[in-house]
């Protein structure tokens, strides 16, 4: 007897229901509110794998197994290039990305209806079948990080505003002088008065001042916004 069913690794209440919407047989139910996790009714499912391709979370898998066989086929969503070829031997990875064995690629489906998420069907041994979640995409550089001694205590000063070249220590000195408003700290420190118009550094200034004064950013006030919001050439302003 053949059995086709899906596995859903969707454990968190997020607002999402394409699996429910695409299923022609109402085998998946999210219902209302939309944040509920999907429930699966195997008896209604015909194993069409539409849900596997549509799931934005890439977390639905189709399992095909046959009674008496020590093999099973897992169809997984796959979004990497190059795609594996039919008949190719693939390293099979589990939920934690650990290699758990090998499988043979039986089908590769990548038509318009999958919208870029290819369906890769891999035949694996029953022993690892239900754990299979991915196939190895490429050998990556997984060199181990190196332990560094004596890094923690030293304070290194650095620029907090690169346009106006203001050092963190300079900002702190000013803030400690008793400047209690963000607009004034901007005026005195020049953080945020440069070419980027504060887009890269205002936030840093807010949080630094908040740390020093113990006030919330909301209490520190927001500097005025002045035209133009992007640098504009003088001759353009000429009209």
């Amino acid at each position: 007897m053949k059995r086709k069913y899906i596995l859903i690794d969707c454990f968190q209440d997020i607002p999402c229901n394409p699996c429910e919407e695409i299923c022609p047989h109402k085998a998946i139910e999210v219902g209302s509110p939309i944040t509920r996790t999907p429930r699966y009714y195997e008896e209604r499912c015909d194993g069409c794998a539409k849900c596997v391709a549509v799931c934005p979370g890439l977390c639905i898998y189709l399992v095909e197994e046959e009674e008496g066989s020590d093999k099973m086929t897992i169809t997984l969503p796959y979004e990497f290039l190059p795609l594996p070829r039919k008949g190719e031997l693939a390293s099979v990875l589990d939920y934690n990305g650990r290699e758990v064995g090998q499988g043979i690629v039986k089908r590769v489906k990548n038509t318009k209806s999958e919208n870029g998420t290819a369906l890769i069907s891999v035949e694996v041994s029953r022993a690892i079948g239900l754990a299979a979640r991915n196939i190895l995409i490429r050998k990556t550089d997984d060199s181990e990080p190196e332990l560094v001694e004596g890094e923690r205590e030293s304070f290194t000063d650095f620029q907090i505003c690169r346009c106006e070249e203001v050092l963190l220590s300079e900002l702190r000195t000013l803030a400690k002088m008793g400047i209690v408003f963000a607009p004034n700290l901007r005026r005195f420190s020049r953080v945020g008065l440069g070419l980027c118009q504060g887009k890269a550094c205002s936030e840093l200034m807010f949080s630094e001042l908040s740390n020093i004064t113990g006030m919330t950013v909301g209490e520190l006030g927001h500097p005025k916004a002045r035209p133009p919001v992007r640098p504009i050439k003088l001759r353009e302003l000429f009209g």
Partner: protein
Amino acid sequence: MSYTCEERDLVVIGAGPAGLCAALEAVSHKCDPLVLDENHRGGGQLLKQVHKFFGSHHHGAGKRGFQIGEELVEKCEEKQVEIRLNSLAAAFFQDGSILVRDPKKIYLLKSKATIIATGAVEKPLAFPGWTLPGVMGAGGAQTLMNVHRVLPGRRIAMVGSGNVGLIVAYQLVQAGASIACIIEVDDKVKGYQVHRDKLRKLGIKILLRHRVVRAEGDDCVRAVLVEDMQTGRVFRYKVDGICLAVGMSPLVELPLMRGCELEYNLRLGGWVVRHDENMRTSCPNVYVAGDVSGVEEASIAMEEGRLAGISACVDLGLIAKGKAQNKRKEILERLRELRAISGKEVGEDQRSSEERNLTV
């Protein structure tokens, strides 16, 4: 004054998901909106989103972000919504006029109603070495690879495990880079479990309770030093790129310049434009939608755009209040659903998938 002045009923600033939905809503009420965007294409941040979206069919769930953006632009074209691209809204003066700069000219727009949908900007994170080339916002990296087809680095450290950090890390791998590590100061992953799992299934680890000590390099980033905050041990990861995904700040300059009140809301990205449920700001006939009113998902931005479009049309006398109320009710219901993510955190759910599925 040598600036010409054009008069319009409704101006929408920003052709992202919020702005385009606002314009589409307005045009459905026989309003003739004008949409401004400083970029050369409409669609906003959707255009660099190559992953499939969550949500329901109302938000284009299951489609890829850029496809949703393209569809919105097509719909606007169908409805003959005027979108002026390469048109920067450089100023929003207190007299209500908007200074617009395009490649050829600069001019003023006076509108009866204005919807501001300018979006957000990435937050910085400062550490020694953060100014080195190779340190960039995760959104910036995403633009580089998905819009301009430039790989931002070969081996990258991602800072932040929110949805942006997780999604961009995954897309970096898709584009051919490798992820050296994902660094998170908190003790749990911030983004959705399914985004986390995409990386997990590739064997990419998220370092919880870790922080960046500094970036090393002479002319560009060569390595990042990361501290395990529990043990105090510091590790050096060799990388040529560091992506910062530590949140977004609403781009509030235009509404602030106009005189709209702000409020501070850390959960929504910091300083946001104060607005009511129908997206009206403290200034009459000025509305906000999308990230500028608080940083949330694109699907939420789209619904907010629709709300702002309805409010503008009500105030312009184009829709009866009763009809508007019904439309709003539906949208607000969907918004409630979208926002009703339960308190369940990813990090708390450590059940293995094997265990879970075997008990189905």
